């Protein structure tokens, strides 16, 4: 491994910094929106296992967030149809989905100048396409607009009501229809283009605006309208506006009860867009954007194509998540322990040691590769050795939400050469990492990070199962310079009090953390964050407790995701 490669691998993760080992306390941030600096408590830790302040449930939502790029694209597709959108594919693709981030702070809640320009230009283009092409005009405006010179007032009213409702995700008020009509001129073509562009640029289309029902307002919160509840359900489950069935449910008052909400959330969760949303959750939770590309020579040694492997491994993970959540209504334990694998290519078939999967029939079962931690995508290292530190940090920080400070990059830098100096011929990767991180400035964190990575050492740098570690000659990749026996036994995991500190190896470790409370809390928290694009605050605690309760009782992830949407909080927002 060359030094720059090593640096790039370790520098993104924690490495050599003094930290206090300890057990996780789940922090729910204090909502400081209404507090002055003087009043604000310092990072008030709240144990989210306790449901506090029920009268304020749902009162934490205050911000008018913009639609994410993905939500915007799905909305446009639902309003206009895929065929019209295909006419502006290039402009549409230029708008980022806003999903490829690993930290909440990476998501910009405000529009940038470039994005506003793109959105407005897109609205102008679409309005022209819709009106200038008779077939699209008939589809969007109605048959009454076939001859624009004869378009009458009822035709306008009908168009504004139907198009407006789909865009604003609620019926338009009489005032709003009058306002839109007030800008009409005698040129119906121009007026329609202006109106469509205006609606597609409206804050009611581009933002999650929730006016609420005025006479329900208390000092702390206001109840949402049925249509606003419908929008929360659909965006929460599918990153999309309400479909016809959800509109109908809102119209008929079915969404005033949790049962009604739950029915719709259940219907949507495993729809095609619901499945995409599920994958977005896992991509965020597992920080999949930071997963490595395989090392080329290592891949070639194993007979694997290094160019396509990462994408294939990612697709395999997506299939796994869908299988666990939507196909089998699996539990958290299944997520960690299931040996079902989904290799559609020879690359993955080789790594998992199973036959190919045809994408339809029952998936094969691997001998060793269990759950998330046994996925090739998770295990692939960007170098010719396994990345013990990255594996350990990802498990602790992302999967279990254990506190993990950022590394001191100066110390990291100083240790890179030291790693090079520890001979891979004489020492195994585990021994080298132990030696590298044994200094007093490092051991504070690495005393817990390293063992969490050691237990996965039976999986090689591409995720292949192995019982010995082979050291290849960099000049002659076919030549093996050394063999090291794999040692996965650890006795100082320091995960949580209820989990044993020792493990004999991977299976033992997986069994332990599949029972972990931290794991379930972490899953609940990241699901909250990716759905609401914010960290939870104190008044969110009841919803989190309920989600956690499902994860602890039935263990069904699907039920937990539904519970995260369909709880009392969905009916409320903060009163201004």
């Amino acid at each position, binding site marked *: 491994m060359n030094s720059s490669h090593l640096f790039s691998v370790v520098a993104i993760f924690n490495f050599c910094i003094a930290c206090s080992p300890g057990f996780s306390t789940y922090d729910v941030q204090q909502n400081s929106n209404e507090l002055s600096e003087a009043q604000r408590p310092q990072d008030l830790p709240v144990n989210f296992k306790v449901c506090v302040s029920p009268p304020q449930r749902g009162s934490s939502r205050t911000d008018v967030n913009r639609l994410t790029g993905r939500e915007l694209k799905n909305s446009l597709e639902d309003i206009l149809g895929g065929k019209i959108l295909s006419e502006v594919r290039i402009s549409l693709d230029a708008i980022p989905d806003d999903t490829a981030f690993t930290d909440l702070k990476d998501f910009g809640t405000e529009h940038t100048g470039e994005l506003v320009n793109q959105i407005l230009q897109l609205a102008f283009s679409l309005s022209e396409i819709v009106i200038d092409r008779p077939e699209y005009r008939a589809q969007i405006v109605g048959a009454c607009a076939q001859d624009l010179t004869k378009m009458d007032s009822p035709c306008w009213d009908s168009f504004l009501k139907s198009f407006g409702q789909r865009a604003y995700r609620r019926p338009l008020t009489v005032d709003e229809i009058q306002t839109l009509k007030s800008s009409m001129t005698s040129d119906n073509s*121009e007026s329609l283009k202006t109106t469509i562009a205006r609606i597609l640029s409206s804050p009611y289309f581009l933002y999650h605006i929730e006016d609420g029902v005025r006479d329900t307002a208390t000092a702390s919160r206001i109840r949402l309208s049925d249509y606003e509840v419908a929008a929360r359900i659909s965006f929460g489950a599918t990153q999309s506006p309400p479909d016809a069935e959800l509109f109908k449910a809102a119209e008929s008052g079915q969404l005033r009860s949790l049962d009604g909400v739950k029915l719709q959330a259940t219907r949507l969760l495993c729809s095609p867009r619901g499945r995409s949303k599920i994958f977005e959750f896992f991509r965020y939770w597992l920080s999949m954007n930071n997963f490595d590309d395989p090392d080329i020579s290592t891949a070639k040694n194993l007979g694997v194509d290094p160019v396509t492997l990462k994408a294939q491994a990612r697709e395999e993970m997506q299939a796994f998540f869908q299988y666990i959540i939507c196909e089998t209504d699996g539990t958290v334990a299944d997520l960690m322990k299931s040996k079902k694998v989904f290799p559609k290519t020879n690359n993955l078939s080789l790594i998992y040691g199973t036959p190919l999967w045809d994408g339809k029939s029952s998936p094969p079962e691997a001998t060793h590769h269990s759950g998330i931690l046994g996925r090739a995508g998770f295990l692939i290292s960007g170098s010719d050795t396994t990345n013990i530190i990255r594996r350990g940090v990802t498990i602790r920080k992302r999967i279990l939400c254990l506190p993990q400070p950022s590394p001191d990059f100066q110390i990291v830098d100083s240790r890179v050469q030291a790693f090079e100096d520890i001979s891979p011929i004489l020492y195994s990767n585990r021994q080298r990492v132990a030696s590298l991180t044994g200094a007093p400035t490092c051991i504070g964190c690495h005393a817990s990070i390293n063992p969490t990575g050691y237990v996965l050492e039976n999986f090689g740098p591409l995720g292949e199962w192995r019982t010995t570690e082979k050291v290849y000659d960099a000049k002659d990749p076919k030549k093996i310079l050394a063999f090291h026996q794999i040692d996965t036994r650890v006795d100082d995991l320091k995960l949580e009090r209820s989990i044993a500190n020792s493990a004999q190896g991977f299976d033992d470790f997986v069994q332990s953390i599949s029972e972990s409370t931290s794991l379930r809390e972490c899953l609940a928290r990241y699901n909250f964050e990716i759905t609401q694009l914010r960290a939870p605050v104190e008044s969110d605690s009841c919803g989190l407790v309920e989600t956690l309760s499902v994860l602890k009782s039935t263990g069904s992830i699907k039920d937990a995701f539904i519970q995260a949407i369909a709880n009392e909080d969905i009916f409320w927002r903060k009163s201004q």
Partner: protein
Amino acid sequence: MINQAHSRRMFLRGLGGFALPIPFLSSLVSRSAAAASSASLIRYVQLTSQNGVNPEDFFPSFGADVKISESAAYRLLTSTGTQDISRNLGRPFTALKSKINIIKGLDIQLPGSGDLFHSRTTMSTASSQDRSYEGEKGFPYSIDMVLGASNSFNPVPSLMPEGALRLGVGSSDQSPSIYGRQRPEYYLDPSALLNSLNRIGSGTNVTDPKLIARNNRAVTTIDLVMEDYKRIANSRKLASQERTNLENFIELSHTTQKRIQLMSLNRTAGKCGGVEIHSGNSTLTYQTYFDLITMAFACGASKIASVVVEPKDPEFRFSNAQHGQVHAMVARWRASRDWVYARQADLITSLDRLTDSDGRSLLYNSVVLSCPNMAKPSHGLDNMPVLMAGNAGGSLKTGYYLDLKGRYNDVLITVFKALGVPPSEYEKYGSGKGFGAYVDSGSRNTTLPVIV
């Protein structure tokens, strides 16, 4: 002392972005006419190169025959007929004599010495060095960045993420642009720049009547959209972050609207779109750069361009690190400077050939300032080789060779004045009157004689 209290917002504005909303909004809503009138046509181009020139190769061989004071004389360049101005300003400039000015005798004055004297890339754009400016030694604001942040000159910041067209330098160390401690990116790849321009809608032909109608409709629509946003802001009580988000959208919509209006104003230029990427040697690369600049100017995508003109071809290349070897490589050195100025002539000619929306040429409606980062390879900062072109829409006269004794800062002040930037907008970057680093006392907001 350098005033470094300029915000990130100002930097972003200089770059064309808006990170933060401004207090609202009555001034922004219903404003089409005001926006149109503020959309001035004048543009600014700065051309820099590295390592200076050989003064005998750059300055005219003829003298300045009209003396106007002890420290100033001039000559009309056209009075020299078809005679070449100098070796560097050879044949391509003969046809441009009435459209350029050459200024001799201006010095950059720096406090201190030693490393401070080791010229940096912002010498000609900030009249000072950039990197070792701890304390009061340097002046870390270049004129292009200050113009980008100027409400008077640039009321409609470019939507390009980079804020302006910045081309042709490989590392930020060599960038002539600086704003405090921040330096914008420069493009090396013309394709990437074209993609960026296309993303903001400048690759299309605005002479198309349908597009003109669309732009007019877009301006109207954005008026209506802004009214819708205002209605929401007035109809319900918004939390501060909610208000911030909505106001941010309005401000950015307003910027888009003004940019569309600017494009409409410039539509008779008829040069939007159609740029082809040429590659193969540095001359072709720069030709593409210049095509992109003229297109972006014509389409209102940017009012500011900054180009570092240096060849990469082996027969001309003269790297920054080689400036101590001029004596050993003098033939290549001189040929390399000839190449640099031939390319500058290419750009000036391109701007001159294009008709702007007011019937004048783009060059007439521009100010081009050319000056390398040092006077000569020895790091000398006395007698900076200044070339200017363009009339700033009538504010600047051209066709003169000026032989002066004075400060280089006067060139920058002249540019600000020609571009309509009041002292209040550039003096806030320094410690007092004027712009850039000064060592002497006395009047600072002085402009060049004759041409203003």
